[in-house]
């Protein structure tokens, strides 16, 4: 589903944010991306979204070399990749339902599809009773659920989650994690960057650890930190 071949990203006048990174992520896999701040996790995510191009190497998403993708095709690439962030990124002037519907409206989905999918997905994330609330009336966990609903409402094959639980307490984080696992089980490939040791250790999923732009560990059913790291 996602393949990186010797990918390096060097920002002008700076050290390499990623160097010679290769990874192969299968369809329906759930992968944790761990490592200290500045280790290259965010760059990894940004390259997959083609917000930036790699300095070297090739990146394939769903079998396509995204470096070859012309700029006008980038929106169509992004329709295949849902995104969730630490800060939820919800529009405060829209209701929960409108926030989720927005993701479908702006890619030109017909109204009957929107009317059908939005309640469906809000039911999945357990927010059926909050559809007409605004984000500031919700708890952090609920806001992140809305954000996840928005990311998957278009049924993308890939979901990228960048520190989705970074702003949440442990109990709420577990709920979000359970939700992500459920989405993963329904067939969505998930790449999740996180600092949350407990969650990684408990989930026992594949772990890719980055340090100073290099992959230092790629382990199936891994834990957050190995020994001294």
């Amino acid at each position, binding site marked *: 589903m996602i393949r990186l071949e010797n990918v390096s990203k060097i920002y002008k006048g700076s050290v390499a944010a990623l160097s010679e990174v290769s990874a192969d992520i299968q369809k329906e896999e759930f992968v944790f991306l761990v490592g200290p701040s500045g280790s290259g996790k965010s760059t990894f995510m940004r390259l997959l979204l083609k917000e930036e191009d790699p300095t070297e190497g090739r990146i394939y998403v769903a079998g396509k070399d995204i470096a070859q993708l012309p700029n006008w095709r980038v929106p169509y690439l992004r329709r295949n990749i849902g995104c969730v962030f630490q800060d939820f*990124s919800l*529009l405060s002037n829209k209701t929960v339902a409108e926030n989720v519907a927005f993701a479908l409206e702006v890619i*030109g989905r017909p109204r009957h599809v929107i009317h059908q999918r939005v309640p469906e997905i809000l039911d999945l994330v357990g927010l059926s009773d909050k559809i007409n609330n605004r984000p500031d009336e919700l708890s952090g966990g609920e806001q992140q659920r809305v954000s996840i609903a928005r990311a998957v409402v278009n049924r993308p094959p890939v979901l990228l989650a960048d520190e989705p639980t970074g702003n949440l307490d442990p109990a709420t984080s577990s709920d979000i994690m359970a939700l992500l696992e459920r989405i993963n089980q329904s067939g969505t490939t998930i790449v999740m960057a996180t600092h949350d040791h407990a969650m990684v250790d408990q989930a026992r999923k594949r772990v890719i650890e980055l340090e100073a732009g290099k992959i230092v560990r790629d382990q199936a059913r891994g834990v957050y930190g190995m020994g001294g790291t």
Partner: protein
Amino acid sequence: MGLRVGYFAAETFINLKRNLLMTIAAITTVWISLSLLGGMMMIGEIGNHAFSKWEGQVELSVFLRDSITPDQQKELASAISDMPEVGNVFFESKAQAFEEYKRMFEDQPSLVQHVSPDALPASYRIKLKDPNSIDAVKSRLVGRPGVEEVNFGGDVVKRFLKVAKLFRTIFLVLIAVLLGAATILIANTIRLAVYARRKEIGIMKLVGATNWFIRVPFIFEGVFEAALGAVLATAVIFAAKLGLDQLQLTNALIPVTVDGGFVLRVFGTLLGTGVVIGALGSSVALRRFLEV
């Protein structure tokens, strides 16, 4: 596509409503800028009109010698009317000149008594299409057989023509400056509005909205705001015209007003300016947010 137009229209008006303060700020900015521009155009039009009227009164008098032969006179007459600069020619015979003289000095019979009906010269009175060509025309007539003297108001007229020219230049410059200022003001307001919604734009990009899909509602908004501002600005100009029309009743010396056609032209100009600036301003303001 019909559905999309529906989406764009709905999105435009929802955004206008949700960002009501921004919308009001943008419309007010357009309104004020375009009112200033329209006002300047109006003052220019009034001044131009007055100068044109005065210029139209600039007249070249070609006085004829009494000794002129009918052939010479015929030749002179056709030479004058063949000149491309000449608008209107009027021949004043000696008798007509005397009548005019009598009329001018009817309160002073002594002046009239001492002038014989034969004493005043006949003349051609020439109105020019472009008063600025007065020197050129004069120099071509001076010294022709049968021509005694070629006359116009002289320095006063020349100075007046210079002032008229200066006035027009200054107004063109002022209008250009105001147009530039209006453009910058409106573009800035739109940029603020776009900036205020950068998060929304970011999310649209993230979920895979195409750039046109993001751009169109903003352009619609810019155009709508600009058009409304232009209508309001035209209303101000129209009110000013009505006010001037009122004054006109007591001051008929020069026409200190504009006609309905001018108001229409102003409306066209302001609407065109506003809509173009609104559309362009929105696209330009969005550009840096739409980079991949």
